[in-house]
Structures are given as structure tokens and as C-alpha cells.
């Protein structure tokens, strides 16, 4: 649990380390060129499956859809035995109760977005209330968004305080802080926002809401991973990472795992510390796993969409 704020004064965020975009691109391209042999690849595919936060965040979500998703979270592809379950389902606060009832006896967690997701455009009072509501409905994890407008205006203390207040309300419920990197524009900003979130008490930092493009590019995730490592060096506190949005196929998921392993080490290679926010990724992983184990690539019609 990240309780850093109680112990030490936070640094001057305007002096966060600078990021060189060209250098980042070059580094990332090296992860993309790593080749994984059969066994390792299969291990990676299974690992990625267990790291998924299966997500539905639509205005038109129905109770039935959430129910279906909760079932799928535990039964990804029953005709094929010994598959892992996903890490969590991620829903709006109004759907938490439904999900939480269905997943009560399961190790699959219920994550709720909060703080006026996806824009974050409401007063702190409302954000606190919404978070409390989600927790009282049974959320195990909270995915909050930062106030990007305030961040871009340079009001870092405002952003920091908001996260810290939400964290207070969360208590032992794990807090993921969504930076919405697609709105932060530069990698310098991604680095700075990562630091603000971690020093303010984030248990996880997360790239995007999935509503804004570009979402979880490997460049952005890489910069956040470096920030996590530096935070660990300075404070001894381990923070998790969740790229979300845009990771729709197995290859990209494996590249991400290679990157986590090389930047942070295998201490982060479990769903306690690394998650994928995705909905379509699961089926692609299933198809690849079955292809690797049986040698046959099946049609997508054999895999349930919800």
C-alpha cells in the first residue's frame, strides 16, 4: 500500500526529469524486436490473459452486459481447460453492485472508475462522494482520472491534493490513477504526471481512459515504467502499471511484457503489479494460446464476444 505522503515532503514537480522522444522511440523499438520462443511465448500469453481488466465503460451498458462480462471473466473459454481467469472487471459505479455480487466468491476483482470518469470535470466533493459510493457498493479497486485541465495549467498542487484526498477515501482499496496521456501531449508531461500521482499515493498508474486517442502507446508506457522504477529507488515503494486502450492484440501485449521485464524486472510480472485495460485483447490471446497448443488457428466465431 502506498502511504508515502505521510512520511516525506514531495519534490518540486516542475523539475521532473526531461524525456527525449527520439531516444524513447529508439528504446521501445528494441523491445519490439525481441523474439520469444514457443514456450516463453505461451507463458507470456497466459500471463497476459491473467493481467486483463476486462472492461465495459459505455453509456449504454446494461446490467445484462455486465453480468455476461462477469461470467466470461471466470470462464474465458470453457472448452479449453486450465486457462487463467482475468484479473478484474472494470465498470462504472452504477454497475459495481451487480458485478460485485457475481464475483463475490471469485478471485476476480471488481474495479470501478470514479471521479467523473472520463473527463474528471466535476468538483472534488462530487468525486469523493462517487468514490465512497463505488466502494460501498463493493468495489475492490478504484480507477480515478486526474484533472488534466489543471495539470496543463501548471496547477500541480491541485492535482496532487485531489489524488491524495481520493486516496484517503480509498483506504485499503487499491487506487489506480489514470493520467489520460493522450491529453497530456508531451512525454515530459507524462513523466511529471506519473510522479505527481505516485507521490500523492497512487497504487497503480494507468495511461488512459480508452476514450481519447492516442491511448497506451508503448512510448508512453515506457516513460511511466521508468518513473515507477525511479520512484521505487527513491522511496522503496512499489507502484503498479496499467496500460489501457489500444492494446488489442497478443503481439502488442507480449511486447509490453518484454518491456516490463527489461525495465522493472520480473517482480512486476504478475497481475498484482501489472494490468492491461482492454476488452478485445482477451479473445486474441485465447486464439493465440489455442493456436500454440493445438497448432490450429480457429475462427473468431468460436470465441464468445461478451
Amino acid at each position, binding site marked *: 500500500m502506498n502511504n508515502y505522503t505521510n512520511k516525506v515532503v514531495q519534490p518540486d514537480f516542475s523539475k521532473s*526529469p*526531461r*524525456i*527525449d522522444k*527520439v*531516444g*524513447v522511440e*529508439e*528504446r521501445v523499438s528494441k523491445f519490439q*524486436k*525481441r*523474439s520469444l520462443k514457443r514456450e516463453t511465448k505461451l507463458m507470456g500469453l497466459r500471463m497476459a490473459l491473467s493481467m486483463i481488466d476486462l472492461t465495459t465503460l459505455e453509456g449504454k451498458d446494461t446490467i445484462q452486459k455486465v453480468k455476461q462480462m462477469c461470467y466470461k471473466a471466470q470462464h474465458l473459454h470453457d472448452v479449453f481447460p486450465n486457462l487463467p481467469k482475468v484479473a478484474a472487471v472494470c465498470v462504472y459505479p452504477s454497475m459495481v453492485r451487480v458485478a460485485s455480487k457475481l464475483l463475490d466468491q471469485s478471485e476476480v476483482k471488481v474495479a470501478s472508475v470514479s471521479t467523473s470518469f472520463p473527463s474528471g470535470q466535476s468538483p472534488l466533493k462530487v468525486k469523493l462522494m462517487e468514490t465512497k459510493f463505488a466502494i460501498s457498493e463493493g468495489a475492490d479497486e478504484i480507477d480515478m482520472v486526474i484533472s488534466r485541465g489543471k495539470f496543463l495549467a501548471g496547477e500541480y498542487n491541485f492535482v496532487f491534493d485531489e489524488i491524495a484526498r481520493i486516496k484517503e477515501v480509498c483506504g485499503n482499496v487499491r487506487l489506480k490513477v489514470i493520467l489520460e496521456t493522450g491529453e497530456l501531449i508531451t512525454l515530459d508531461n507524462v513523466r511529471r504526471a506519473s510522479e505527481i500521482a505516485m507521490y500523492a499515493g497512487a497504487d497503480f498508474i494507468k495511461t488512459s481512459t480508452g476514450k481519447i486517442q492516442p491511448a497506451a502507446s508503448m512510448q508512453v508506457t515506457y516513460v511511466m515504467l*521508468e518513473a515507477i522504477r525511479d520512484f521505487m*529507488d527513491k522511496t522503496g515503494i512499489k507502484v503498479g502499471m496499467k496500460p489501457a486502450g489500444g492494446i488489442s492484440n497478443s503481439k502488442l501485449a507480449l511486447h509490453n511484457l518484454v518491456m516490463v521485464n*527489461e525495465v522493472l524486472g520480473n517482480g512486476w510480472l504478475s497481475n498484482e503489479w501489472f494490468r492491461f485495460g482492454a476488452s478485445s485483447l482477451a479473445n486474441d490471446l485465447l486464439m493465440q494460446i489455442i493456436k500454440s497448443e493445438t497448432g490450429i488457428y480457429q475462427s473468431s466465431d468460436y470465441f464468445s464476444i461478451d
Partner: protein
Amino acid sequence: MNIWSKVSPSEKSKYIYRIARLMQERARELAIIETLDSGKVIRESRDIDIPLACNHFFYYAGWTDKLQYAFPNKKVSPLGVVGQIIPWNFPLLMAAWKIAPALAAGNTVVLKPAETTSLTALKLAEIIRDSGLPDGVVNIVTGYGDTGAELVNHYDINKIAFTGSTTVGKIIQKSISGSDKKVTLELGGKSANIILEDAPIDQAVEGIINGIFFNQGHVCCAGSRLFVQESIYDIIIKKLKRRIDKLIIGDPLDKNTDIGAINSKEQLNTINNYINIGKSEGSKIFQSSYKLPNKGYYCAPTIFTDVSQSNRIFQEEIFGPVLTIQTFRTIDEVIKKANNSPYGLAAGVWSDKGSRVFNLSSKLRAGVVWANTYNKFDPTSPFGGYKESGFGREGGLHGLSPYINLK
């Protein structure tokens, strides 16, 4: 028409393009041969050496019919027969750097590859034959130093282009004195890589790694002298060590290998000898803890801290994966220290501030200065040294002028 200098420019261009395309078609084969022959990792031969070699031919193919415009108000003619001697660190790439501009300018070529790495040059000869280039225009002659000496001293040679050690470069210059042979030399280096306190730290660490461990440090422009501003010294060293420990050392043919094998037993001995000198000079050594393969010539990536300007490991070219590190406090200090070397091939500057980069790059006496990157090569960009790193440029328009007569 079999006389190359009389072949029309547009025809010349076609031949050179054809060579480039044939090389591209056989890129995989060339990459594997290069790795087998030299010990460099397949990732580098596949992604850097071979594509870049092709690009040099593509680039110079475009110049053949534009020479009059490249050198306005002059009459351009070829030199005649050029002798070219290349080293073992980038066998095919160096052959391309030498042959492509020479052909574009209308010369014929006799090229001698290094004795330890002749295979891709011979493969290139096969490709050139397949391209239909008239017989005798490009000649590849293998052999040791004595073959090189024959070439240098031959009365029919009009120009010598040499890439290799400064020692041999000096011998060549002595042997051609008194003749009217032209010469360009691309020699050794001990290049400075300078990290200022406002640098993008993690990318700078990557740049340091790339600067010194690219091709096992067998790079004439390797960033082998690292200067780190003292306020960020601790963090840079910490991150650098952690990163070095993550480098995968082993079979060069494995796509995941980061650091391959040392080119030859002799070179491994030279490097190990310098590592011992470094220890006896009192510098602190750190080496990757990665387990080296039992078989083959391997050298763990090595860094030396607490090095002084007067140490031999800081002054002499090691040509291996050995980095020497010093700190500095002011910009003036680092400029003085960086320039305090008989070499002047390349340098790197890392800073977030443009004005600092330009200030340093204009004061460093080095042929190439990279800003916030290192070891970047492009056929359009001239490459070459100051001082004992040689003279003459390869690449770009500058790379043509050593191969032509102007009237």
C-alpha cells in the same frame, strides 16, 4: 562500351542502383554471413550494417549525372584507379562507403578487405558481377598487410582510401610521400560523450550504452570517454550499472543477443591487456555479471570510474567494450578535457537546452558531433575526423570530392 569512365552518367547510375537492389534482395544472406564472420550480433548486421550499406549505393547512384552541378563552374573528371583498404569492424558497410562514391565519380576500384573478415566483400563481388558491371571495374583482393602495402605502393594507383588504425595510417602516408597519389584516411578515435546535468537521464544512459557497446566497442567513433556533470554523476552511474547488467551477451546469431563476440583472439588480448592496465592504474572497475559463454572470444561490458586524464585507458583507443568515466563541473572544463586528445573523430552532447548543445558542438574539435543521440549514420551525412583521426570525408556530397579531379 567497357571503359567505366566513358560510360554515360545515367548508365553508371543504373549499374549502381542495380547493385543496391541486389544487395537488398540478398540482405538476409549478407547479414548472416557478416555475423558468422565477424561476431557482431545479428540484430545489428540485420538492422544497421546491411541496410546502411545498401543505402550508400542508392544514395551515390543518384549523384552520377549531377557531378557538374555538385561542383559548379568546375570541370569534373575521375581520378582513375583507386586503392581502398578497409577494416574488420564493419566489413560490408565499409566496402559500401568506399566503393559507392568511387564508382559514382567514374573511378575503378581495387579493394582489400581485412584478413579476418573478407567474406561479405567476396559476396559483394559476386553481387557486382551479377549486376553486369563491366569486368575489372571493381576488384576485390584479399590478403594481409603486405597485400595492402603492394596496393599502396603500386605505381598505377591514383588514390588510396584507408580506414583503420592510426598507426597504419601513418605508415601509408609515409609510403606515398613523394608520389602524386591522393589519400584519405579515416583512423582511430577516443571520442567524448558528454552528459550535462539537464540531459534526459534515461535516454542519455541508453546513449552511453549505444555509444560504447555498439558492435562490442569495435567502432572508430565509439563514445569511449564519458564525461558526466558532477551533480548527476551518482544517478547516471547507478542507472548505467543496472542497465549494463541487463545486456544479453552470447551467441551473435541469436536475435535477442545485445553484445556479441570479440572479432578475434588478438583483439580480445588487446582489450584484456587494457583492462589490466586500467586496474593497475588504480581506476575502479565494474563489469556485467552476465555469464559469458564458455566458448568463443567474449568480453564482459566494462566501465572504469575514478579515471584521470593522464591514464592510458583514457588516452588510448581500446577498440572494445570498455568505457572510461570522468566527471566535470563547468562547461569550459569539459571542452578542454574533451579536446585534450590526439584524436578528434566524434563526440556526443546530451542536454535539454539547445543553446548549450550548439555552444559545445561548435567548440569540440571532432568531425561529427551528435546531440542527444550517438552512433547515428546516414549516407547523406559526411563522416570523418580531425587531428590523428584522419582527414577527408565519407558520405554526402563531401564524400564525392576525394574521388574527383576538378579543373
